C-alpha cells in the first residue's frame, strides 16, 4: 500500500515539476485519461531550463522583460531598493506572473508607454507582422535587411540560454509605427497560420536559392525563416528551426564537426528509443524474423552492424530462452565505431548482455569489433564457424545507408555478407529518398519526412499515459526525452541538408530502392510472418498517441508510419540459391 502512495506522490510531482525539479505547486492527482497537464502550452525549450512561460504569452512576457530591464536601468536607486526588502517574491519560474508583479512594484511612469503600446497593437491590421525589439533604432525604419552578425542564424532558437535573445532578432522587417518615447516598443501581433504557409514557402525558396548558388538571396531568406519560425508553435517551429539551421550551415559553409562522440549519439538514440516506437518496432520485427530463421538450430550467431547499447538483444535472448526445446547457444558479434576516449564501449555492452544471459539461462558469447566503416571488415575477420554447426544472422538497423557515401563500399559489404553465408539478413531503414543527386529534391523529401516525424513525436509527447516504468511510454513531463529525440533527428537533418560527399552519411533510400539493390546483388526476400505483424501492432497500440501510428505490410516487409506516411521499413533477406560470391551489378 505504501508503494501505491509513493506512486501517487510520484505522479503528482511528475505532474508539477519540470526536468530540473522546479515545482509549481500545482500537483493535481493525475488520472489516466487526463489530457491537460499544467505543462500544456508551455514553451518546451524554456521549460527545460526551469521557466514556465506559455507559448502564447511569449511576446507579452518578452516585452515586459524589456520594460523591466529598462525600468531597473533608468529608475533611481531609491526607486527599487524596496524590492530587496520586499518579502513577497513571486515564483520566478512562472515568468509571466513574476514579471508583472515586478513591473507593478516599480514606479508607474511606464504606464504611459504601455498605453502607447496598446495603441500600436490595436492600430495594426490582422495581417501578419513581426515582433521587433531592436533597442537602438527608434525611428521609422525602412524594410531593409540589416547586414548583421551571426545571431541571425536561427540556431539560437534551438540552443539558446537567454529568453531575450530569441525575441531580439536584429534583422528588421518592420511595419512598425513611429514612436518618440524612449521606452516604447513597437510590438505587433503575428498571425500564426499565414506565417505557417509563408514559412514553408520561404524554406523551399531558400533551398531553391541554394540550389542555384544564389547565396545572397539564400542568406536573406534564411534569416527571414528564423523570424517566421519563432511565430509558430510545436512541431512546425522545431522542424523549421532545424532546417533553417542546416541551410544556414550550408550557406555560410560552417559544417558540423564530425568530432561529436558516438557516445553522445548513443545517448540521443536512447532518448529516441524511449520517446517513440520506431526503434522498438525495428528491434521487435527484426527479432521476430531472426527467431523464426533460427528454429531448430542449436548454435546461433548474430552479427550486429551497429551495436550501440545493445537494446535489441535482451528481447531476443528472452525469446530464445523461452522457446520450446530450450535456448540455443547464442553468440553475438557487435560492430561499432572507435570511441574518442578509447574506452571499450563494445566490451561493456557485451559484458552487460552476458550478465543478462546468465540470469535467464542462455549460453552466451560476445565479440566486439571496432571499425570506422563496415567496409573495413571482411568475412575472414569475423570468425565465422561452419554453417552446418552454427546458423548466422546479420542485423542492420539504420546502418547500411551510411555506406552509400563512399563509392564501392556497399558492394564490398554485400559481398562480405554473401561470403558469411547467413541464414537471414534483417534490414531496417528509413523509408525516404534522401539520396537524390539534386539538392532541391533531397531538401523537399527531407522536409516532408521530418515534418511527419516531428508531428508524431509531438503527439506522443503530449498524450497522457500511465506507467511507472520506462518501457511503456512516460507521462509528458519527460520533455527532456522529447527534446533529446528532436536533437537526434536534428542532427540527421543537418547532415542531409548541409553536408556533401563522404561527410553526408545519412543517405536514406526507400524500401523499393533497397529491394532493387538486394535483388541484384543475389538476395531473395524473406516474408515477415503474421506473428511479426501482430507483435508490431500490439506494440504500437501500447504507445500513447498510438492511433496515429500505422503498421503496413508491403509484399512481405513491414512498414511503420504516421498516419498515411510510412517512415521506417523492416525487410528480411536470404541468399539466392544460385548466387555465387561474385558481386552483382548494382545501380547506384
Amino acid at each position, binding site marked *: *500500500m505504501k508503494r*501505491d502512495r509513493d506512486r501517487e*506522490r*510520484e505522479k503528482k*510531482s*511528475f505532474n508539477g*515539476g519540470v*526536468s530540473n*525539479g522546479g*515545482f509549481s505547486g500545482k500537483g493535481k492527482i493525475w488520472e489516466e485519461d487526463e489530457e491537460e497537464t499544467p505543462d500544456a502550452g508551455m514553451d518546451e525549450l524554456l521549460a527545460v531550463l526551469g521557466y514556465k512561460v506559455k507559448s502564447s504569452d511569449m511576446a507579452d512576457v518578452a516585452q515586459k522583460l524589456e520594460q523591466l530591464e529598462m525600468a531597473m536601468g533608468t529608475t533611481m536607486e531609491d526607486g527599487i531598493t524596496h524590492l530587496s526588502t520586499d518579502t513577497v517574491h513571486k515564483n520566478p519560474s512562472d515568468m509571466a506572473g513574476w514579471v508583472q508583479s515586478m513591473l507593478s512594484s516599480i514606479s508607474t511612469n511606464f504606464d504611459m508607454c504601455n498605453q502607447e503600446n496598446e495603441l500600436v497593437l490595436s492600430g495594426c491590421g490582422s495581417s501578419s507582422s513581426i515582433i521587433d525589439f531592436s533597442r537602438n533604432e527608434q525611428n521609422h525604419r525602412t524594410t531593409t535587411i540589416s547586414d548583421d552578425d551571426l545571431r541571425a542564424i536561427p540556431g539560437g532558437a534551438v540552443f539558446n540560454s537567454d529568453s531575450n535573445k530569441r525575441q531580439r532578432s536584429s534583422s528588421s522587417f518592420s511595419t512598425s509605427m513611429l514612436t518618440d518615447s524612449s521606452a516604447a516598443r513597437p510590438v505587433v501581433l503575428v498571425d500564426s497560420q499565414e506565417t505557417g504557409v509563408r514559412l514553408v514557402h520561404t524554406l523551399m525558396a531558400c533551398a531553391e536559392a541554394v540550389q542555384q548558388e544564389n547565396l545572397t538571396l539564400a542568406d536573406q531568406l534564411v534569416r527571414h525563416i528564423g523570424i517566421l519560425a519563432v511565430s509558430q508553435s510545436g512541431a512546425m517551429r522545431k522542424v523549421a528551426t532545424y532546417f533553417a539551421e542546416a541551410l544556414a550551415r550550408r550557406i555560410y559553409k560552417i559544417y558540423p564537426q564530425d568530432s561529436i562522440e558516438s557516445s553522445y549519439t548513443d545517448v540521443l538514440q*536512447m*532518448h529516441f528509443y*524511449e520517446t517513440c516506437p520506431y526503434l522498438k518496432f525495428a528491434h*521487435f520485427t527484426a527479432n521476430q524474423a531472426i527467431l523464426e530463421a533460427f528454429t531448430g538450430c542449436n548454435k546461433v550467431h548474430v552479427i550486429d552492424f551497429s551495436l550501440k*547499447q545493445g*537494446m535489441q538483444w*535482451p*528481447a531476443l*535472448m*528472452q*525469446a530464445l*530462452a*523461452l*522457446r*520450446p526445446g*530450450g535456448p540455443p547457444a547464442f553468440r553475438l558479434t557487435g560492430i561499432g565505431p572507435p570511441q574518442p576516449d578509447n574506452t571499450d564501449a563494445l566490451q561493456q555492452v557485451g559484458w*552487460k548482455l552476458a*550478465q*543478462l544471459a546468465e*540470469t*535467464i*539461462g542462455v549460453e552466451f558469447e560476445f565479440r566486439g569489433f571496432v571499425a570506422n566503416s563496415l567496409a573495413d571488415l571482411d568475412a575472414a575477420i569475423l570468425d565465422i564457424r561452419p554453417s552446418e554447426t552454427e546458423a548466422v544472422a546479420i542485423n542492420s538497423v539504420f546502418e547500411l545507408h551510411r555506406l552509400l557515401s563512399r563509392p564501392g563500399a556497399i558492394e564490398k559489404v554485400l559481398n562480405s555478407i554473401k561470403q558469411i553465408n547467413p541464414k537471414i539478413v534483417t534490414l531496417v531503414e528509413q523509408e525516404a529518398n534522401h539520396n537524390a543527386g539534386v539538392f532541391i529534391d533531397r531538401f523537399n523529401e527531407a522536409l516532408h519526412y521530418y515534418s511527419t516525424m516531428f508531428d508524431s513525436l509531438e503527439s506522443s509527447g503530449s498524450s497522457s499515459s*500511465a*506507467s*511507472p*516504468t*520506462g*518501457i*511503456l511510454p*512516460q507521462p509528458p*513531463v*519527460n520533455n*527532456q*526525452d522529447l527534446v533529446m529525440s528532436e536533437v537526434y533527428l536534428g542532427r540527421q537533418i543537418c547532415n542531409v541538408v548541409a553536408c556533401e560527399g563522404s561527410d553526408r552519411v545519412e543517405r536514406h533510400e526507400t524500401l523499393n530502392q533497397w529491394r532493387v539493390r538486394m535483388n541484384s546483388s543475389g538476395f531473395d526476400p524473406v516474408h515477415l510472418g503474421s*506473428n511479426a505483424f*501482430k*507483435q508490431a501492432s*500490439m*506494440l504500437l*497500440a*501500447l504507445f500513447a498517441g*498510438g*492511433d496515429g501510428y500505422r503498421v503496413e505490410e508491403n509484399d512481405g516487409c513491414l512498414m511503420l508510419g504516421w498516419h498515411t506516411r510510412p517512415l521506417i521499413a523492416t525487410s528480411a533477406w536470404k541468399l539466392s540459391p544460385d548466387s555465387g560470391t561474385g558481386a552483382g551489378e548494382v545501380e547506384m
Partner: protein
Amino acid sequence: MVQLENGTNFFINDNVDVLIVILQRLDGGSLGVAACVCKLWCSITRNDSLWEHLCFRHVSPPPEGVRTVVLALGGYRRLYMVCIKPVLDRLRKWKKGTGFDESEVMKRVWMQHEVELSLSLFCVDYYERVFLGGGGGAAASSLMFLCNAVNV
C-alpha cells in the same frame, strides 16, 4: 469472523489455504487492497505464486522455463505490475476501439501474444533497470531522486 451453522466460529486467518484460494480469484488491484488488511494478508499477497497465477490465469499453460526466467528478471508481481497489467489495459482499450473479434479462440491466441510481448518488454525493462541505470533514461531516475529530497 463468520459464524457457521453448527455454532462454531470461523476465522479466516486460521484457514490460510481457504484464504489463498479466495485471493487467487482476485485481480491485481484487489490484491493490493488485500495486502493492507493485516500482516498475515500482507505476507500472503506478496507471495509470488499468487501473482504467477494472476499472470497466466487466462492463458494456456505457459511453456516450461518461464518461471526461472521471470523470477530471475524480478518476479511475477513485478511482471504483472510493470508489464502485464499496463499491456492488458491498453490493449483492451485498443481492441474496443478497433471492433475486435472477441471469439474465445481469438481471445486465447491474442492473450498468448500479449503475454509474450509482456515478457519481452519485461526483459528489456530489466536490462535497462539493472544495466543502463534507471529505466526510462537517466532523466527519470534523476527526477525521482529530486522528488525524494524535497519530501525529506
